[in-house]
């Protein structure tokens, strides 16, 4: 057999536990880039090399290398940070990034436009407020998601604590990050990675914890999911899910999005053992020849679910109990104020596409800074790229709401569909992007809102998600309407998510330009307005009406196209 491991595996193996030649790359003044191999290693340290694609052609003509900069993504389990941390995050973004902060669909923040010479100072600055970027990207467990706004704050505290512990437990143990960025002493003698080994995982690995009935973390789209089972405020344990994932390669029918399978129920004390066992099975059985097929979802398809479960049980030393019944009712954020059982208030702010910046038209960044200056609770970044001001005492409600209103941070006045929708960063910075998303989506939505308005369905929220490529950062395959970039100005239109993240959508029309897309949506909205049942969501309608067949087994039927 002629099988070669993919080149990334060799780079990892040769990296001496993620050191690579990062020091040399950083010291090279003649280029704003890293050496090619180091661009792979840097991901494990939380940052990606990017270049301004709008400037590529000009700079090539100018005999200049591309305008390289870096995107750094922090590790922030459950998206929780303190006001003091937020002030530091904000200052760093203004001084060492491109002046903005992005809240991500994985409940953390990232900086764009960091020049190479500013990387080390930036990492040191966030480290001063106890934030790191280890595993922000790379083939390891990524930032752990946790429902940020449950009905019970006691329960949240407990589940969040598990999120934090899982994140710590699955953190790479190499000292490379401390040595290179924080001037830590080099380790004497041998080093090891007890969980990962020296080649880490075959691919990224995503973990989420959901607290029903909210599925804002889209728990089924993660490699590893924990669904909290509680009685009142008391956590009984978790239903364990495994094998979800979004990423697809256009026209490669061996790739598909997949929702996670249920493995069974465990009590809380088995959490870390099970998390480590799932990771280690993926480490040992995951595909290291093809990165397209390296996520856990393909490993499970290959092994078979039963074999996979047996292996996890054996490694964790547990027996799964039957999964408990749960009910999810929503997939998006709940905007506005919510009071918890202890009488504290939580305000979910609206941050369009997670873009925190001051522009001539808006002052979001200043507004959040002002709130952080007086807030006494904490902040929580949501999986919908929004921000929750959490734990506000009754007496401060009015002040905080006042600031939020002044800086246009409240949801009010926006269409339910806009509030339910997300888009990824895409052009011009993301190297994966094939089409626009974040900087195009708000305008496109305006037109779509007009169409919805015309058909009288403007009061109905439709979960709509746009990505610039098929990798799925904004989880477009569980949206009621997914728009997946194929090329400049061209999108695949996906229909049929259920609005709560329990059903995959399906390709409805391929490669539409804006005119075709709007015409198609106009027609779909017309049918929906005329034929929907009371309370029927658009995605459910699309399936019932037979516009798309529901996806039953994506490995088999995902690529059936009407």
């Amino acid at each position, binding site marked *: 057999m002629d099988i070669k491991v993919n080149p990334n595996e060799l780079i990892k193996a040769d990296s001496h536990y993620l050191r690579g030649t990062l020091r040399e790359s950083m010291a090279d003044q003649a280029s704003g880039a890293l050496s090619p191999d180091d661009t792979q290693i840097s991901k494990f340290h939380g940052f990606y090399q990017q270049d301004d694609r709008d400037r590529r*052609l000009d700079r090539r003509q100018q005999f*200049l290398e591309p305008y390289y900069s870096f995107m750094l993504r922090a590790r922030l389990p459950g998206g929780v940070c303190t006001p003091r941390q937020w002030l530091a995050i904000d200052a760093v973004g203004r001084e060492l990034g491109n002046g903005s902060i992005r809240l991500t669909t994985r409940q953390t923040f990232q900086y764009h436009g960091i*020049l190479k010479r500013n990387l080390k100072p930036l990492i040191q600055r966030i480290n001063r407020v106890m934030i790191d970027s280890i595993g922000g990207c790379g083939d390891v467990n990524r930032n752990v998601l946790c429902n940020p706004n449950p009905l019970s704050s006691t329960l949240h505290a407990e589940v969040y604590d598990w999120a934090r512990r899982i994140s710590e437990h699955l953190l790479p143990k190499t000292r490379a990050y401390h040595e290179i960025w924080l001037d830590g002493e080099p380790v004497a003698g041998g080093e090891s990675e007890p969980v990962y080994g020296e080649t880490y995982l075959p691919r990224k690995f995503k973990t989420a914890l959901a607290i029903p009935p909210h599925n804002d973390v889209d728990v089924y789209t993660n490699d590893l999911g924990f669904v909290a089972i509680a009685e009142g405020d008391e956590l009984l344990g978790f239903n364990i899910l495994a094998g979800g994932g979004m990423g697809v390669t256009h026209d490669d029918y061996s790739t598909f999005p997949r929702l996670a399978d249920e493995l069974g129920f465990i009590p809380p004390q088995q959490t870390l053992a099970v998390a480590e066992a799932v990771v280690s099975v993926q480490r040992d059985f995951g595909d290291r020849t093809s990165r397209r097929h390296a996520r856990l979802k393909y490993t499970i398809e290959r092994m078979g679910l039963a074999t996979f479960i047996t292996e996890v049980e054996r490694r964790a030393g547990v027996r799964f109990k039957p999964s408990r019944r749960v009910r999810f009712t929503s997939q998006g954020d709940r905007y506005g104020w919510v009071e918890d059982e202890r009488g504290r208030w939580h305000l979910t702010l609206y941050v369009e596409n997670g873009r925190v910046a001051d522009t001539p038209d808006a002052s979001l960044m200043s507004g959040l800074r002002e709130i952080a200056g007086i807030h006494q609770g904490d902040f929580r970044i949501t999986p919908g790229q929004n921000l929750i001001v959490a734990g506000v005492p009754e007496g401060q409600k009015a002040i905080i709401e006042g600031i939020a209103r002044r800086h246009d941070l409240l949801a009010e006045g926006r269409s339910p569909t806009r509030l339910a929708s997300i888009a990824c960063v895409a052009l011009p910075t993301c190297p994966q992007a*094939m089409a626009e998303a974040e900087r195009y989506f708000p305008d496109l939505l305006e037109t779509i809102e007009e169409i919805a308005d015309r058909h009288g369905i403007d009061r109905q929220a439709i979960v709509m998600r746009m990505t610039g490529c098929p990798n799925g950062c904004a989880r477009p395959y569980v949206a009621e309407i997914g728009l997946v970039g194929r090329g400049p100005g061209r999108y695949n239109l996906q229909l049929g998510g259920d609005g709560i993240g329990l059903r995959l959508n399906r390709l409805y029309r391929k*490669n539409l330009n804006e005119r075709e897309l709007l015409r198609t949506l106009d027609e779909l909205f017309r049918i929906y307005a005329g034929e929907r049942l009371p309370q029927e969501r658009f995605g459910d309608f699309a399936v019932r009406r037979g516009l798309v067949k529901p996806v039953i087994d994506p490995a088999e039927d995902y690529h059936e196209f009407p």
Partner: protein
Amino acid sequence: MDNTVKTLEDFSNHPLERVQLSRLLQAVEGLDKQQLSWASGYLAGLGVLEPTVAKAPDQVPGVTILYATQGGNARSVAEALAENATAQGFAPRLVSADSYRPRDLTKEQVLVVVISTQGEGEPPESAYDLFKYLRGDRAPRLEGLRYAVFGLGDSSYEQFCQAARELDELLGNQGARSLLDRIDADVEFQQAATNWQDRILTELGELQPLDQARIIPLQRESATPRHDRNNPFRAALLARHRITTADAVCNVQHISLEIDPAVIRYRPGDALGLYFQNDPALIEEMLALAGLAAEAPVSLDGERMTLGQALEERLELTQLHPSVVKAWAALAGDQGLDTLSREREKLRTFVQNRQFVDLLQNHPADVDAQGLVEILHAQQPRLYSIASSQTAYEDEVHLTVAALRYRGHGRDHLGGASGYLTQRISEGDDLGVYVVENPSFRLPASADIPIIMIGAGTGIAPYRAFLQEREALGSAGDGWLVFGNRHFHRDFLYQADWLAYRKAGLLNRISLAFSRDEGACSYVQARLYEERAELYRWLREGAHLYVCGGVEMAQGVHQSLLAIVQDQGGLAEEAAVEYTETLREQGRYQRDIY
């Protein structure tokens, strides 16, 4: 007469290929004694000239496989083809479109292209230059070219394989003949690629015998006209474009001119002298101030022409000479100006930031057309260090030109030549040029000797020529570039070239000083001193040191060098001076200062 034609077997140990020998025998068949004698001399002469044509096999590659890739597929198809072609005994040249010089198309015999298409039918970015060239008015005829195109695309797009289609058409339009019909391959392209590859190899196999018949061109016999400042060569502008970003302080442009290599020869380190056209806007302003008409007839060096013509092409308008000020002061009867023009130093300062138009404006005088022509000097040619090596670009000269701009005395001033070269000249325009040899700024005689190249701003230009030369000659010597400018991201001139040379092993060290970047080292002399141990080590290993740039910078570097030698060599100041003097005498410390 039956002369001495023999069969192959009569020659043992001949160095010719079978086919070459048979052609030679054919060629001499039927020649008489006198003709044979002449031919033998001719052939011997060719042998002596051989070194100048030694590169012929490289310049005339049999088969070039060119790829323009978006996601890497085109590249892999091209690489596979190259590999198989090589295995079958061809010597293809595999090259990515972004490293390919479109003008080389005319030298190709067989061109095989693998190209993908972007979303809306655009060619990949790497093929931008190639397409621009072929779409343009100056695309050459390509009758001698046989080509094949393999397109990669996605049939779900309307513009399926558009880039391949367009390229096919463009090449066809220029007279190139296709070797095989174009293939437009879809997302699943492998099978199509394999089939196509087989067909290409078959076609190449049939072409091969033709290909072997390379004919060495006859040397031209005519006496070479010598081009100098009195007899400049008319060089056409091939291209010019800005190489600093739009937000850079200085507009620096890369200029390429077309020359005839038979009459224009230059070496790395040489400069190009050139004449330029003055700015029509400036001329208009001058005429208005003087109250004269462009059509006014004048006589210049015995030639009749209009005043406008004289001002545009023949007279010096932008560099103000002290003697012109003096003459003007007398004509204007301007007391103040007259006094000033008697004081040499003041006059020097006065002319430094003024042009003749400032005199017209601020010190008006009555002057007629002929009077104006006589008071002005003839245009001075300007010199620019050449930024290319003729070994690499035989028929081109590259220049690195910074637009000179300053404000003063109530108006904007634009440099004469730099304004012409960076703002007004357009492709196809020609200008008078000649080579100015610079024997005191030469690469070491041996290609193995390390070189340290220090330059600021456009002073970097000759080093591009140096490294092009070393690359073309396959030199093994080490190189160290020390460069200073304002901003890393905006005006790191030719950055991509230096990075490529570093990758190729021609540059081992790049040291930079960007004066306006936060936290960066400010000037090259300071950067040099920081790296003094390394510099001294290089000098001890026999490195040659080059400095190119303005006077101030050169002085700074010199002071730095003296300090380094004292610090590292433990020398007293006097001994350090002697050390640098010795370097100069040995030709190891060469400067090009302007």
